[in-house]
């Protein structure tokens, strides 16, 4: 059997206010504990706000600045420049944003930061909606998924953030999730050693927003990979694609039927999603020259 052996610095503390069984809290544990204490975090409005804890308590043993929704990337870039100016070039500056703060509201700042190749690590906790404010749709919400703002199911497809950012030719983009802890830690370690704008997109299945049992985040994360919905891969310099874990040809239905947000789907809609996923997977394989 595969055994995990992960070295952690104790940065993320218990007593935080994430929901029981939260994938994002687990992701945060490995992001913060891998990057270590020599870091500063930037957190826009998202689940990570309450997760940090109510003033005067913090679950994160690094300085955190709560910025406005649209400015995570630029705030992080500014902090990093300030450290550089003071000769403290070794401090890691992390932006920790959700998909709303990345795909929608923070996209302009991120694009600008990527254009300048600012020296930050940008983590997008992608739970495919505004789960902190009542499950509204974001541009990351997949087609046909129910949200409170798409009660009949979302009509448009999920935005492909990785391709957008790859077009900026940033040095490193990776996708990962907590179903594959070794993959997740490997990518954070790799990003930590690099310089320039590094972007990691983590699929963080939301127990409440997606509607599945509270002990199932790792299983759901893996199903997303095994069905090909969310392959785990890396893009270096916008060119070099490496697939780490991808579709195992498992029918999409295995993933959809376990989530309340998809329970209204018709057979045709499931087939439509299957087709879209298959095309996405083929396209990715082509990009990776497989």
């Amino acid at each position: 059997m595969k055994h995990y052996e992960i070295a952690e610095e104790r940065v993320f503390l218990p007593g935080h206010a994430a929901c029981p069984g939260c994938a994002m809290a687990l992701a945060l544990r490995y992001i913060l504990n891998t990057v270590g204490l020599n870091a500063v975090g930037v957190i826009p409005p998202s689940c990570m706000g309450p997760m940090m804890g109510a003033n005067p308590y913090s679950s994160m043993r690094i300085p955190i600045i709560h910025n406005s929704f649209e400015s995570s990337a630029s705030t992080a870039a500014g902090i990093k420049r300030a450290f550089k100016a003071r000769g403290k070039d070794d401090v890691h500056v992390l932006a920790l944003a959700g998909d709303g703060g990345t795909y929608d509201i923070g996209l302009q700042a991120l694009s600008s930061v990527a254009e300048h190749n600012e020296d930050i690590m940008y983590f997008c906790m992608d739970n495919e909606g505004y789960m902190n404010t009542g499950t509204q749709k974001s541009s990351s919400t997949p087609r046909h998924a129910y949200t409170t703002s798409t009660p009949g199911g979302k009509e448009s497809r999920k935005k492909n953030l990785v391709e957008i950012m790859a077009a900026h030719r940033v040095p490193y983009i990776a996708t990962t999730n907590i179903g594959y802890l070794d993959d997740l830690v490997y990518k954070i370690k790799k990003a930590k050693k690099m310089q320039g704008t590094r972007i990691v997109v983590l699929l963080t299945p939301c127990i409440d927003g997606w509607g599945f049992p509270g002990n199932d985040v790792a299983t759901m994360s893996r199903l997303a990979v095994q069905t090909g919905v969310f392959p785990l891969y890396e893009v270096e310099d916008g060119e070099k694609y490496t697939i780490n874990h991808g579709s195992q040809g498992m029918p999409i239905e295995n993933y959809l039927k376990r989530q309340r947000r998809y329970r209204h789907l018709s057979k045709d809609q499931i087939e439509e999603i299957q087709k879209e996923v298959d095309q996405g997977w083929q396209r990715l394989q082509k990009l990776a020259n497989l």
Partner: protein
Amino acid sequence: MSKAANMLSTAWTTLRSDALNTGTWRSAIPTYRYCPSPCHQACPVNNDIPAWIDGIEKGELHGAWLKLAVNNPFPSITGRVCHHPCESYCNRGQYDEKISIRMLERYLGDLSLERGWSFPAVDVAKKERVAIIGGGPAGLSAAYHLRLEGYTVEIYEARQKLGGLLRYGIPAYRLPKEVLDREIDRLLELGIEVHTDVAINTPGEYDRLQKEYDALFISTGAQRSRKLAQFEDSSGIIQDGLDYLYKVNSGQAPGLGQKVLVIGGGNTAIDTARSAKRLGADQVMIIYRRTEEEMPSQKSEILEAGEEGILFTFLASPVRIEKENGVQKLVCQKMQLGENDSSGRPRPEPIKDAYLSFEADSMIMALGSDIVMPKIGNGLEIQDSVLKVDGKQETSIKNVFAGGDLTSNIRFVSTAMGAGKKAAQQMAQLFGGNTVQGSSDLETVSFEEINTFYFPRNPAVVSGSFQLVVSDRIKNFEEVQLGISEEQAIGEATRCFNCGFCTVCDNCYYFCPDMAIARNSGEDGPNYTVLDQYCKGCGLCVRECPRGAIVLKEESK
């Protein structure tokens, strides 16, 4: 303090959240549990299989053997001849292919003999003394478990050497005598006195033993072969199966001629047929009144016999012997299968006026065997044609226990060993010692509780078994099944789910979003502690435990 500094200070968080108590959110808490695996539960000696397979996987081979030896003193023997019900219940069988537990057991047993490992010395001496009558698998197992508890044990064996059926029933090509001798020698090193060539046959002798010892364990087996009434007076060409095997195993096998018929469908029938073939018979045929499906013999034995050229005739029942021009023939009536009988198998029914006949130089009757009632007191009872014992292996006479084929119609080596173990535990309890009780009434880990993500599909490293080629087998009594290498053993052990057994894989620790599982470093005690101040009761650790060693328990105030 200036006003500005005062205002600034409220913007800083100065305290750590680990002072907070998120455990109050919880309604259920994960609990590390002891839950037996299906193989453990199916094992007649209650062998803790997942524990010692974990030892093999980690390369801690001596430790693994010690864990195995807690319940089974003879892994080299059972690794060869056990009917391995453990494998039939293996959860991995529902996934790709079951674990070859028997081959792993044999690997550890053979390794222990090769490296000369000894059982841990008995460091207590208790005053009670037990006599064991019959040194077969049941008696030896009882002796082992009693001796480990510190009791004085003496074995009375009617034959020249210990082993019972293991020595005089099972041919060397299945269980080499050297393996048997070495396993028994190691057992005797624990300090067990043996009286061979001493048959306890009379009420006077039993009386003496009852006075001399605090308890008796009788395991004299089932040695009276069943016969067919129609052949009572044709003993000339008819041999008794058990008797023939005894002679073969003592090096005094009689000649049988070229054409040999074996009547019966159990292991004795197969063993005699294969032995006869090895001793030069040209044509050996097994005649059985039901079909292959109903044969009580192990399937692998039937397969190997077929490979060696043993012929089978099913649905035939012997009626009489005819002589024609100096040629002997066995006439059989053709049978067909009817309704199920009390044994749960279809009853063979004769087909009117349908006969077969086979030429035969000799015939071997292997129709099963019955017990000979021990001549002790007047109180013993018979039930289902075996000696009646209660659930604790105790007979109706106080302090007289019995086990093995004498008390059971389920006649497997490991079943007999299990009865010996159980009797030993009951005696120890009777004497006021501490014993570990079996866990036969616990629920087992189900396949659904296994997280198969951690076990990539991977068919058995040791599929079936490795065997000598047929041409090398049928001329001698060389062992047919070969052992496996260390590499193969570790490879196979790695496939094991270790159902319900915590292998300290740390998944529960790594998958907690609340850092509420602490790893313990101590040698003894639990491997992990749930920090109930923080645990929110999400159950992710339960879900990510690959082997069902944690459960979520609801908490009520």
